[in-house]
């Protein structure tokens, strides 16, 4: 029985961190689906979004300390607006050689990382949790209130996004643009606008992930690298470009990481996690929920 509760505790921890990866993976997948662009700067966007939220919460703006919820909304909106600006830059890259596109996104990541060091300094800071630090105990399983908030808000955002994409006019236009831009244009859909909205949503989700995680982790300009890599791996494992796949990939990656640390070897957790991702891709090259490409003769 004890072993079962340990397993459940481990999985709960994995779901918590996996929700973070899911939000980052979702942004990666949405941008890829929209423009065919792999944004290797997404980890840096996650970091920038965190700072854009935390500057209001921690009193960096003339000592103003806003409530966490307000800071969250401000951070997400500011990062979304930043996404609209970046879309204009990436619009040119989407159609050029793949190598130029990759260089462009990698370069953007370097720019953002170093810009944040210049503005905020290299030393990071811990963030006070807006909720109690004491865990909620249910049948011996401990869950942090901040993790519950992370999972809850992530779920609301993801469900809201799915509803937006399937029920709203703009959402349908976005999905049409993602399927075939040229035909969408001929149908009167403003493809560039839908791309901009996609970027805004993707960047906003990355900011949401960072701001929700900030009280749990340590905020510093280097915080985006590992999460960005894991978010990308999650998106690929779930099916790059597939929205539900990104969510599934993120949650799974978090659980795999937690179980690797708890049951296999904590020394090689990262290696084991990525090996499992590779194994999944060997059997499902398009990802778990990715579109299966069939060659027709």
């Amino acid at each position, binding site marked *: 029985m004890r072993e079962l509760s340990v397993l459940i*505790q481990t999985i709960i921890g994995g779901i918590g961190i996996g929700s973070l990866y899911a939000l980052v993976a979702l942004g990666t997948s949405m941008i890829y689906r929209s423009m065919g662009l792999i944004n290797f700067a997404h980890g840096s966007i996650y970091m920038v979004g965190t700072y854009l939220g935390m500057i209001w919460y921690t009193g960096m703006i003339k000592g103003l300390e806003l409530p966490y919820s307000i800071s969250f909304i401000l951070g997400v909106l500011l990062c979304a607006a930043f996404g609209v600006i970046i879309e204009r830059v990436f619009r*040119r*890259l989407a159609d050029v050689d793949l190598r130029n596109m990759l260089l462009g996104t990698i370069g*953007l990541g370097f720019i953002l990382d170093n810009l944040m060091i*210049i503005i905020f300094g*290299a030393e*990071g800071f811990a963030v006070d949790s807006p909720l109690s630090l004491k865990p909620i105990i249910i049948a011996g399983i401990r869950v942090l209130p901040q993790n519950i908030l992370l999972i809850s808000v992530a779920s609301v955002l993801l469900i809201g996004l799915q509803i937006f994409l399937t029920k709203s006019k703009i959402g349908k236009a976005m999905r049409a643009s993602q399927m075939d831009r040229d035909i969408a244009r001929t149908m009167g859909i403003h493809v560039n606008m839908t791309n901009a909205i996609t970027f805004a949503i993707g960047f906003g989700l990355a900011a949401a992930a960072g701001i929700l995680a900030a009280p749990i982790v340590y905020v510093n300009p280097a915080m985006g690298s590992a999460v960005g890599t894991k978010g990308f791996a999650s998106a690929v494992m779930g099916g790059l470009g597939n929205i539900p796949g990104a969510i599934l990939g993120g949650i799974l990656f978090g659980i795999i990481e*937690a179980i690797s640390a708890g049951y296999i070897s904590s020394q090689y*957790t990262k290696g084991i996690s990525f090996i499992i991702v590779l194994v999944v891709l060997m059997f499902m090259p398009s990802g778990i929920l990715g579109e299966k490409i069939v060659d027709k003769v």
Partner: protein
Amino acid sequence: MKCKWVFVVLVLALAISACAPKATPTPEPVVEPTAEPVVVVEEPTKEVCTEPLKIAIIGAMTGTNAILGEWMVRGVTLAVEEKNAAGGIKGCPIKLLVYDDTADPTTSVTIAQKVVSEDNVIAAWATTNSSCALADIPIFQAAKIPQMTFGTNVTITQQGSPYIFRSCPAGPAFETPIVDFLVGEGFTKFAIIGDNTAYGKGEAQYQTDALAKHNLTPLAYEQHGADDKDFSGQLTKIINTEPEVLLLASSEVAAGLIAKQARQLGFEGVMAGGQAVSTPKFLENATAEFAEGIYFTSGYPGNDYNDQTKAFAAAYKARWGVEAETHGANVYDLMQVLFIAMENADPLTPDNVATEMHKVCGYQGLQGEMCVAENGETLTTTMMGQWLAGGEFKFLE
């Protein structure tokens, strides 16, 4: 047209990356000499200064452990500024060159090679962490340049280099007293968690060795990556073994997060660790609530210990606006030893400075009496303390 935008983004990336403090020297010196270089006059002990004496600082200035680089720069800069204000070394001012190795050994080696071949330094701090310090030893040894570090891995001074000097006690001096104390208190079930760097593995090894002296072995030893922030998997596994004591072998940020997460996952036993656990950065991440009761060891007895530490703390606070802590204190101490050696070295060459450093014994520093051993160790004792409520701490008798 399309290529133009690609070109603009690439150029911007290169330009801003070139301006950023990542593995490149600062464009301006960190410390401006307060005196102009002087020419030799009557006294034969005056040095011929055609340019300031240069000391390099190589360390983690960015990344998760950027605070270590910050502490090193603060302590060294304070010492250098005071020395320059007092006339420098034999009338020559000292200039600092700061480099960021991001705590990556490969980057650190590249920078060290540049420092020894191009910068004409009299000595160097290299680096803030044990992995990089170990990687740089052959370079400074070959160049016969004194290399100083506060990395605590014991193997740093076991490489046979006469040019390596440690500014604080080695790892066993931090971990053995903690284990001895806790075993003496009746605890027998220990678990260890640490990072997978040379520092973390070293500290964990010293903890294990200390336990072995009491015929004890850890119930669990779990590792984590240096940049990890979630330790729930490792901690859940450890807690399942029901240890009485959790020994921390991680650096400041990770150790603080581990302490907090361990309590949140229900660990109610004792926690303890070495120097990293004694720092303000540990407290910041653990929070005062979860740091309470945790034991630590430190080479620095605290800012209020005696007149010397109070004066240092006051000068540090005036210069940097923050309270002094152990890393800044220990680099400040070794800088005083370096200054003694530089004054005595004749002629003033890096090799002679290293030789003179080995002759320094009995210098009363902030951390106590310093005596430079043949292998570069300078201190052997630490003090044990404990975090109290509200973020206060006390040293135990």
